[in-house]
């Protein structure tokens, strides 16, 4: 068809359309997507993290307090054992001095016997000695050559003299072996006194390790190397073997805990800064402090393990939640976008048909009002022409007659336009008839055969035999076909071909396709071709109403028209009509006609 690119005002209209289309999109979908994604993820993930943190803290505190109470139990049990051990030996010595006379004790054979008995009954004793009030060791049984040694200058001797009984901390003494001394002062009848002194080597460590192993069975978690049990004295010197904190008689690396009458558990740090849990007890009436030291980090290892699991679980669930939300949000927003697109399309369609209807009404009104004065002009001009006709001098004047003819021609042109306007606006009742498409097409073509032959246009009709007779409005359908085929003819100069194809399509509809090999329609014009007064043939007398009328006629028949076109290749109009007219459309048409 002959659609040249149209004047400026159409480009303006084009811009306006674009603007309109943009303003229809109410939503910024990217923002909505981001917002809903962030909000949903926030609401989903925050509680998960919150509970995870709470759980983390609660388990940590529980674990810690469990550890503390275990340490407490272990400490208090251990110190009782140690105290009992020492007490027992002290009492034994007490019994010996009460039972034996000073002389008897000074008998080395008797003393050796007593030592032997002590070893059998209590165990742990290394040697036994009797020291007179001057500090001289009178009698001694044991493995060291200590008989005759003078202890008067030693601290423990001073202590035992002043207190009556005494347990010393670990020291080397004359024998140069770490040991403790348990000494009892006993008064004789003549106001003098002597001291029975026993020493214990190594055995304290053994007790502690024994205790340790008994507890190992009870508390598997605390077992082995995690727990270090040892004694220190009040200046912090290590008294029994320690696993990690130094050897006997070395300075302990942990600060000496503050004095207390009770068993206590405190948190401390070692020289490397590692966290420790320290249980301690000042063992009464001895210089010892029982220390139970646990490595907090190692203790918490199982908990750290579960913490790792917790974090892994958290990470996995958060990932799943985020992926799920991402998917759902994207899906929903895409749906929303689609819906919006459809809404805009429908809005556009509604606007379009509204526009057509109001233009139609306006056009009808204008055409009607113009018709009467037009008739008067026609008659007046005719009359003037008549008058001229009867006077010879005027009749001979070609300018006068030419002017009159020009007026009459213009009136004719005006009336043609008003007639078409009225045609456009007319809403006739749809009169339903049974239609045989093949015969209808041939009827329409009969108007055009002469022109086709004259311009050597090849008309091909391919109408499938399986199309049943269907219900439609004959006149309107004829008009539609005539308009489109006329347009097809107009798009070709000479030669070329027009093909009319028809077939039944699903949903009981008929599809009629009219294609030509004409000049085609440009993409930008394609959008406007159904709008009234859009024409590229204004010079050739086109009103721009033909296709617009065709469009509204097809609408009235419940059909639709689509166009495909390529410049230089040709154009195809596809008319899709229902086989049955809906009642609703009929009543619409009749109300509109009133």
């Amino acid at each position, binding site marked *: 068809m002959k659609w040249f690119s149209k004047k400026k005002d159409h480009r303006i209209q084009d811009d306006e359309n674009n603007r309109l289309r943009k303003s229809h999109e109410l939503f910024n979908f990217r923002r909505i997507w981001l917002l809903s994604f962030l909000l949903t993820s926030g609401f989903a993930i925050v509680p998960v993290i919150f509970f995870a943190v709470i759980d983390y803290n609660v388990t940590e505190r529980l674990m810690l307090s469990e550890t503390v109470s275990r340490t407490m139990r272990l400490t208090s049990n251990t110190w009782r054992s140690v105290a009992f051990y020492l007490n027992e030996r002290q009492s034994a010595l007490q019994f010996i001095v009460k039972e034996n006379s000073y002389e008897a004790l000074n008998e080395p054979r008797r003393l050796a016997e007593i030592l032997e008995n002590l070893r059998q009954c209590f165990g742990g004793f290394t040697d036994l000695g009797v020291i007179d009030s001057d500090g001289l060791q009178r009698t001694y049984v044991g493995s060291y050559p200590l008989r005759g040694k003078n202890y008067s200058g030693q601290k423990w001797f001073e202590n035992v003299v002043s207190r009556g009984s005494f347990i010393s901390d670990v020291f080397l003494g004359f024998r140069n072996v770490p040991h403790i001394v348990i000494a009892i002062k006993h008064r004789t009848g003549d106001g003098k006194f002597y001291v029975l002194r026993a020493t214990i080597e190594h055995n304290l460590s053994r007790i502690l390790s024994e205790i340790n192993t008994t507890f190992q069975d009870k508390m598997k978690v605390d077992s082995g190397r995690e727990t270090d049990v040892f004694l220190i004295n009040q200046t912090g010197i290590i008294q029994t073997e320690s696993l990690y904190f130094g050897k006997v008689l070395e300075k302990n690396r942990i600060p000496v805990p503050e004095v207390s009458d009770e068993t206590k558990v405190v948190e401390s740090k070692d020289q490397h800064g590692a966290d420790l849990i320290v249980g301690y007890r000042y063992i009464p009436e001895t210089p010892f402090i029982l220390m139970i030291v646990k490595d907090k980090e190692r203790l918490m290892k199982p908990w750290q393990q579960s913490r790792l699991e917790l974090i892994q679980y958290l990470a996995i669930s958060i990932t799943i939640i985020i992926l799920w939300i991402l998917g759902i949000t994207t899906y929903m927003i895409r749906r929303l976008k689609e819906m919006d697109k459809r809404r805009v399309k429908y809005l556009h369609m509604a606007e379009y048909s509204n526009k057509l209807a109001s233009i139609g009404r306006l056009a009808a009104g204008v055409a009607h009002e113009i018709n*009467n004065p037009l008739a008067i002009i026609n008659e007046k001009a005719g*009359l003037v022409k008549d008058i001229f006709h009867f006077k010879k001098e005027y009749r001979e004047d070609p300018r006068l007659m030419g002017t009159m003819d020009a007026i009459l021609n213009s009136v004719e042109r005006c009336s043609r336009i008003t007639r078409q306007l009225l045609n456009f606006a007319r809403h*006739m009742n749809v009169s339903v008839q049974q239609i045989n498409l093949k015969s209808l097409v041939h009827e329409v073509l009969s108007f055009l055969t002469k022109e086709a032959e004259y311009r050597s246009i090849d008309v091909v009709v391919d109408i499938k035999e399986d199309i049943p007779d269907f219900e439609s409005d004959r006149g309107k359908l004829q008009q539609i076909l005539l308009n489109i085929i006329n347009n097809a003819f107009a798009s070709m100069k000479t030669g070329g071909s027009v093909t009319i194809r028809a077939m039944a399509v699903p949903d009981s509809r008929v599809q009629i396709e009219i294609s030509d090999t004409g000049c085609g329609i440009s993409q930008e014009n394609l959008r406007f071709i159904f709008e009234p007064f859009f024409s590229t043939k204004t010079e050739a007398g086109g009103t721009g109403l033909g296709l617009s009328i065709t469009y509204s006629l097809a609408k009235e028949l419940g059909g639709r028209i689509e166009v495909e076109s390529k410049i230089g290749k040709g154009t195809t109009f596809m008319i899709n009509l229902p086989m049955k007219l809906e009642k609703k459309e009929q009543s619409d048409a009749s109300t509109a006609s009133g």
Partner: protein
Amino acid sequence: MTEKVLLVDDEQEFIDTLAERMRNRGMDVETATSPKKALQLVEEGSFDAVVLDLQMPEMDGLEALRILKEKRPEIQVILLTGHATVEKGIEAMKLGAMDLVEKPADLSKLTEKIQKAQAKKMILVEKKSEEKIKNIMMSKSW
């Protein structure tokens, strides 16, 4: 023989001019600007043709046509219409209008139609008088 024509339209200007042009062409023209006056004129004298506008304020053209036809069945009516609607045309034809001319009318076409109308009326009148004569001949035996 001059054709006797009655022009009916509510536009005074229009029918005056049209009437003048037709008179110039040797027709005997009378005008009426309302259907009522037209009916009156038709009752008073006989016309070969009536040119009637379809749309008038007081009375619809079709209504006027119906009454005219009732009064003078042999009268030939040519309808003038502002917008050619097929259904109105069909209705007019059913009511017995002879023809339908679109406004603005081409005078030569209109004249042609008026001449046809006159001829038609002549035939009708002749037929009528023939019948009358027949009737007289049948009823009155000589």
